[in-house]
């Protein structure tokens, strides 16, 4: 197990009486790419600002490398931030922007010069020393913001939706660049995004947040394959979320039909939610599957076909490389390990807190 680097302990924060973070607990390990993922307004930036020292939590502690830094000013923390909107110094050229932190620390001229060169090389912008920030494109400014942060050799780099303003192609390029930089630097990245695909692509560890609560933590595979509640399942990729009844261990009744599954310990005849990913729904010949249905819609998506199948009174979303004509009568089959069973929250509030509690 990697060493623990940052611990957020029982962090609460409210603005004007609105609870933004409620008793948040999170541990971040050394040399990890951690992503905070969640819908707009769920408190991702607030969490990052508490780690960076720009906001004080109302209660709770921030522990860094075993030391309590809750009250420490941002300039005394060993973290650097790449802000959501670049926040470059417009009155300085690129070299001066990158040198800012080093000059504050009274590094030698030669050291600073070397670092500028190294950083510009790392972000693929060699020769940009004497350009002014407002003459660069959004993607270039973003990379300068990253260069400006990393020359300070932080133990942790905080990135707040750094690719939010870029077009799709540049975004994908920058995703690979960031992973490369992370590996080259060997430091911890805490990355904020509301783009689930970006999170799945880049992270070692994903923290899914909603309404100020952590819904689920885990590797991208865990989060995708075994969402713990309907919110996570719905937020991470397309999915079929169906209310069902757990008949007994390893048997769940979905839409009136019994399906074999692998989940245990929910009790007998308990109301649950099940998640089935569209690519895990198999369409087979009538009579060879579990639940009969009729294809009602089909769209070609490039790599696969996206189909809608009416079965058991539910509209199933199905991804498959093989197509079935609209109107064709099929059976639905799902392998037991592809059925993910989750507790059903009793209320809205409980839904926000999640079943992880």
């Amino acid at each position, binding site marked *: 197990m990697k060493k623990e680097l940052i611990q957020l302990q029982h962090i609460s924060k409210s603005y004007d009486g609105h609870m933004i973070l409620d008793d948040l607990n999170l541990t971040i390990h050394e040399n990890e790419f951690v992503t905070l993922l969640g819908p707009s307004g769920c408190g991702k930036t607030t969490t990052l600002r508490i780690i*960076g020292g720009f906001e004080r939590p109302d209660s709770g502690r921030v522990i860094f490398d075993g030391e309590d830094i809750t009250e420490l000013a941002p*300039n005394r923390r060993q973290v650097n931030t790449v802000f959501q*909107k670049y926040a*470059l110094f417009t009155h300085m050229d690129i070299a001066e922007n990158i040198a*800012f932190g080093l000059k*504050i620390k009274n590094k030698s001229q030669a050291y600073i010069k070397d670092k500028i060169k190294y950083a510009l090389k790392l972000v693929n912008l060699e020769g940009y020393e004497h350009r002014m920030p407002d003459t660069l494109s959004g993607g270039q400014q973003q990379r300068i913001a990253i260069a400006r942060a990393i020359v300070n050799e932080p133990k942790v780099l905080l990135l707040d939706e750094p690719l939010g303003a870029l077009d799709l192609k540049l975004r994908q390029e920058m995703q690979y660049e960031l992973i490369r930089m992370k590996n080259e630097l060997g430091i911890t990245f805490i990355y904020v995004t509301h783009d689930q695909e970006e999170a799945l692509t880049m992270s070692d560890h994903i923290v899914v947040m909603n309404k100020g609560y952590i819904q689920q933590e885990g590797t991208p595979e865990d989060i995708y394959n075994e969402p713990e509640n309907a919110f996570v399942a719905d937020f991470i990729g397309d999915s079929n979320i169906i209310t069902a009844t757990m008949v007994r261990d390893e048997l769940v009744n979905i839409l009136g039909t019994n399906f074999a599954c692998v989940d245990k310990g929910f009790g007998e005849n308990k109301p649950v939610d099940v998640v089935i990913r569209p690519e895990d729904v198999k369409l087979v010949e009538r009579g060879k599957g579990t639940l009969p249905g009729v294809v009602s819609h089909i769209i070609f998506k490039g790599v696969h076909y996206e189909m809608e199948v009416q079965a058991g009174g539910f509209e199933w979303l199905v991804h498959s490389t093989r197509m079935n004509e609209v109107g064709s009568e099929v059976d639905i089959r799902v392998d037991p390990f592809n059925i993910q069973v989750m507790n059903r929250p009793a209320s809205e509030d409980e839904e926000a807190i999640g079943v992880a509690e």
Partner: protein
Amino acid sequence: MFNNRKTSTVMSSPYLAWAFIFIVVPLGMIVYYGLTDDSGAFTFANIASIAQPEHLKALLLALELSLISTVICFLLAYPLGMMLAKNKMGNQGIITTLFILPMWMNFLLRTLAWMTLLENKGIINGVLSAMHLPLIHIINTPAAIVIGMVYNFLPFMILPIYNALAKIDDNVIDAARDLGANKFQTFMRVTLPLSVPGILSGVTMVFIPALTTFAISTMMGGSKILLIGNIIEQEFTLSYDWHLGSGLSLVLMVFIIINMIISAISERKESD
């Protein structure tokens, strides 16, 4: 049919006429009067008369007092501008109103109010004597003129500085802190340089009217202290020597132009 160019010429013609009648013509007349004598012959004598001791003294005093006023205005306006810019939504309205409201009143009236406050038998001394405290004798001194200038021109310093500060993105300040700068370093290296354009226009907007004023010095200085503005005014209204008055105005204009060139240059440097 109009073409666009013609339309815009037609549309702007009232303004052009206004500018011509009220800016170009008077300026031309000042240049003409300034460079001629009574007989209409060309001369530098009017301009050279700035070298006369009483004129030179008035010019130097005007420069000194307007510089002092500009500095005081800056020192008062900057912290206030920062406070205003900080709580962008808070009680900004109240503070702004407090400083802007007096501007709706005629400035002679406002200066008159200061006269009655500061007079030897004025309100302030009335209060002081009631409290058995030593009286102040400020009226008719250069200090009174500076008070009048600062009071009248302070809003012109606050507004551009506030505008410049309000434009600075909070994230940029956070970024400086993030990169290790303490509050003072952040101010010196980021906030202050980014507000230079506001400071420059504030300085221009205070320095020029302060340099040329005659009303404030007349009222607060009790016509004993003459600034260059007073000399020029007297040439026009008392001695009826338009030539001399215009000549001295031309000299004053040189200082105004120098001020504007300096701010234009530093602004260009800023944006480079």
